[in-house]
């Protein structure tokens, strides 16, 4: 059952689309990430009508349950300016943070993929470690991702920095450290983003028994 219908077509459409707030002001337009276009086209209802039945509440391309996919850019609070590293063998360190305040309490994360673009002249044999930032106060497992020159680094955080069974924090802060064998290695963090897939079970049709 839907909540009591607020007045006006906009409010009614908001409610039908389960959006808690109307769009405010003008968005900071930015290019739509190709992965989001791909996922949108993959769910194009026309495909559904031409005999490619779409599984409800499932993101085929990523192979996980879900009905909301967000591409969240890092909010650039204290990232990109590498912090000096005093530990030998450790290169520059960064802290990136993601604003998750838009995620509703009923949503359950089913995929959290960090994507980082590093710029470095020679990154052979480097590794990037990803962990919850110490500021989160809860040391968690550290992920190690090999750096591949010219390609974005991807790290699946579910089960590591993001718990699959707990509600998401309002802000996710991650500490990134470059393991490159030299403290004076030159590398720049060009971009960091989080692809977050969540499932809001309230939007999923009840399993209908076959007649």
């Amino acid at each position, binding site marked *: 059952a839907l909540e009591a219908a607020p007045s006006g077509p906009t409010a009614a459409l908001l409610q039908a689309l389960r959006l808690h*707030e109307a769009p*405010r002001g003008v968005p900071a337009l930015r290019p739509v990430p190709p992965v989001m276009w791909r996922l949108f086209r993959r769910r194009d209802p026309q495909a559904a009508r031409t005999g490619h039945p779409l599984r409800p509440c499932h993101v085929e391309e990523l192979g996980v349950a879900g009905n909301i996919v967000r591409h969240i850019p890092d909010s650039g609070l204290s990232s990109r300016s590498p912090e000096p590293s005093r530990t030998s063998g450790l290169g520059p360190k960064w802290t990136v943070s993601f604003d998750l*305040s838009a995620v509703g309490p009923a949503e359950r994360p089913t995929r959290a993929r960090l994507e980082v673009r590093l710029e470095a002249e020679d990154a052979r044999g480097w590794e990037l470690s990803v962990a919850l930032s110490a500021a989160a106060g809860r040391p968690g497992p550290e992920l190690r991702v090999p750096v591949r020159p010219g390609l974005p680094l991807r790290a699946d955080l579910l089960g590591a920095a993001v718990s699959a069974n707990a509600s998401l924090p309002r802000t996710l802060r991650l500490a990134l450290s470059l393991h490159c064998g030299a403290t004076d290695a030159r590398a720049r963090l060009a971009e960091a983003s989080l692809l977050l897939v969540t499932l809001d079970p309230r939007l999923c049709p009840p399993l209908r028994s076959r007649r």
Partner: protein
Amino acid sequence: HTEPGVGGGPGGACRPRRLHVSFREVGWHRWVIAPRGFLANFCQGACTLPEPGGPPVLNHAVLRALMHAAAPTPGAGPPCCVPARLSPISVLFFDNSDNVVLRHYEDMVADECGCR
């Protein structure tokens, strides 16, 4: 938008009628990246005794149509013309935190109507 007069107006047998939802109409066109709008449709038309090729009918609806034809009883009108098959839509938009969001919504487009 509904487009009056298309397909003979509200009369005729129970079937989908065009209803286009436009995000521009509610001023969301800067936020919604795609689609610009979608055909939601709605169901309208008479539910009389089932006819070959007519809308799908439940047995209960047949009984009700028979009763209504034989002895109209106040409060027990003919069966209703309602969505019988629905399909999903996806909406890609910027949210208020400037994230790019893709949401899937089930049962948003009335593809078929039936008498119930």
